[in-house]
């Protein structure tokens, strides 16, 4: 049984301008000990998906449908007490900006202790010992002493380590990381990714990594979900996604990345901008920007369909297999020009 299975998740926010369909039919699953990368650009719904799973959306004006089965229990319908037992305990989450994600007026030791004491019946001294252990595990020097420091006395990279320590303190089965390295320098990012990799081996947790950086996800993920306009457009094991992408949006994403090892004169440009989630386009949401669009795309929404010969690889595009093969070959060779454009 999958550790977490999300089925047809929808999250709609009622706003003054109308209903924003921030997540509109997302399904995926993750196995124990694996890493799933959720990739997409801003506004695609990747963060909201995970906030919904954790129940961290503001409740007013929010409608959520679908299922999020964690070890068989539906997180979306369980009572809040049970959900609170799971949060920070079985499922932990870390966020993008370590500077603002820690309370500036509480000591680090207290904040770590809070995470422990909420879920374990131990004394303060035991909690402190455990906190020290975790700080050491994430590579913070003078761990015992640093427990009495405040967040502003740590650097950005250190703060993110503290967040990771806080998330792992109760040995969670699943760690959700929402853009954990976006706000960090590239060498610090390398340190953090390295750390997360090591800790995954040590603690055995599954990781959901949300990011817009395809490089990061290529390094760390086993499987990848690509989101666009509140829906999943492609889903595959990592090698398949990069070597055999099957959706024009994925081609566009991969083609628009400047590379260290190839030279292109112009980067692939996806024309236009992402659609409004108040009034998404009819049919396939990518159709206004797609160079391969034809009649059916504007009428019918493509569902996630498995690729022939690769049942783990799902994609949502009506284009025929031959064209996809052709375009992908161009992409891999570096001569992809965004399709008809």
């Amino acid at each position, binding site marked *: 049984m999958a550790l977490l299975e999300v089925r047809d998740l929808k999250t709609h926010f009622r706003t003054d301008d109308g209903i924003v369909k921030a997540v509109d039919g997302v399904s995926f699953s993750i196995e124990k000990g694996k890493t799933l990368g959720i990739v997409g650009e801003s506004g695609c719904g990747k963060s909201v998906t995970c906030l919904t799973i954790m129940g961290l959306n503001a409740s007013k004006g929010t409608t959520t449908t679908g299922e999020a089965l964690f070890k068989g229990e539906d997180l979306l319908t369980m009572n809040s007490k049970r959900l609170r037992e799971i949060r920070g305990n079985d499922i932990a989450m870390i966020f993008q900006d370590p500077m603002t994600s820690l309370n500036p007026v509480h000591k680090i030791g207290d904040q770590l202790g809070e995470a422990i004491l909420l879920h374990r019946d131990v004394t303060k001294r035991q909690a402190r010992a455990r906190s020290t252990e975790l700080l050491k595990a994430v590579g913070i020097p003078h761990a015992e002493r640093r427990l009495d420091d405040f967040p502003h006395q740590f*650097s950005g990279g250190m703060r993110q380590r503290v967040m990771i320590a806080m998330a792992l303190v109760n040995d969670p089965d699943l760690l959700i990381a929402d853009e954990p390295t976006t706000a960090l320098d590239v060498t*610090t990012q390398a340190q953090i990714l390295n750390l997360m990799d090591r800790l995954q081996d040590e603690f055995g947790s599954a990781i959901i990594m949300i990011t817009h950086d395809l490089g990061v996800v290529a390094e760390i993920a086993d499987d990848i979900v690509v989101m666009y306009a509140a829906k999943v457009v492609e889903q595959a094991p990592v090698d398949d996604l*990069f070597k055999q992408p099957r959706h024009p949006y994925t081609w566009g994403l*991969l083609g628009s990345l400047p590379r260290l090892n190839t030279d292109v004169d112009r980067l*692939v440009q996806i024309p236009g901008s992402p659609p409004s989630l108040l009034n998404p386009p009819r049919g396939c949401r990518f159709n206004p920007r797609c160079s391969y669009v034809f009649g059916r795309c504007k009428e019918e929404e493509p569902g996630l369909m498995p690729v022939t010969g690769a049942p783990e690889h799902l994609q949502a595009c009506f284009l025929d297999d031959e064209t996809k093969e052709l375009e992908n070959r161009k992409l891999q060779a570096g001569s992809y020009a965004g399709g008809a454009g």
Partner: protein
Amino acid sequence: MAASEELLVVEDLKKHFPITRGIIFQKQVASVKAVDGVSFTVNRGETLGVVGESGCGKSTMARCIMRLLDPTGGKIIFDGRDITKISQADMRPIRREMMMIFQDPYASLNPRKRVGFIVGEALEVNKMGTNAEIKRRVQELLDIVGLNPEHYNRFPHEFSGGQRQRIGVARALAVNPKLIVCDEPVSALDVSVQAQVLNLLKDLQDEFNLTYVFIAHDLNVVRHISNRVMVMYLGSVAESAGRDELYGEPKHPYTGALLSAVPVPDPELGRQRKRIVLEGDVPSPINPPSACRFHPRCPRFHEGVCDVTDPPLRDFGREHTAACHYPLEGWPLTEAQMRQRSGEPVAS
């Protein structure tokens, strides 16, 4: 007289911010050496990429070049003229020739002004035409950067991030500058929008023979757009070379670490390579390490040399220079390989 090849020459630029202490009379006790001896040259029509992490001084350096900040030391020679110490009044006509594009598309446009005003302001200030001529020019510019000229009267909040950045580009182009300093122009944009803006910048450079100083922390982006690249660390230049040289045969260990740290969107390649992970955090420019700034984190650190003597600027030919006692002897290298080095510092 033929214009020289060199549009911008910077010699030993320094910018120190004083730190003061004192009860009644504030006395300077230390300084933040944000830029501490940076030298480089930019030729006409080329793009110099400047790469570095937070605290390296690249933004401060950009502002010094533009004289938005006054340098503490060194020389800035723009188009043959020494602009280091000239007054702000004398600087004004020169400002027409160097413009800047900023990082944050949401903060760099005045939200209370219409787009037409924002793009045309420099033209008005420099009295470059009648009102009608300016309006026409602004609409022309909006078209050039791929926006609808009809949107002349709209406000910034009516545009997306990528479009706002294009407005920033139009604003910079308005006065036909010779040099455009781009301070992280695509860092705040999504990947697909980033591609649009990068393509636009490249097209404009070809069309108008512009010269760019392109500052970014993303090595992939810098590689795509630059002819030459300069790597900065904590206020000084670690390495400087032509683009292919720098990425293909880096000499400074920091450059090597940076290149190694960049995640590549290729899972196979990612699995194969052994990433070099540096220890510790980027130090603060208030108290920089002694001698070589990079020595506390350097895999090639040699005690007694790197922390005592300033590393000499070595020339590797083809305008490739690096400031290191033990430059890298090959690439790619793993961390273990990096740590092996010959006992003696390489003779220049």
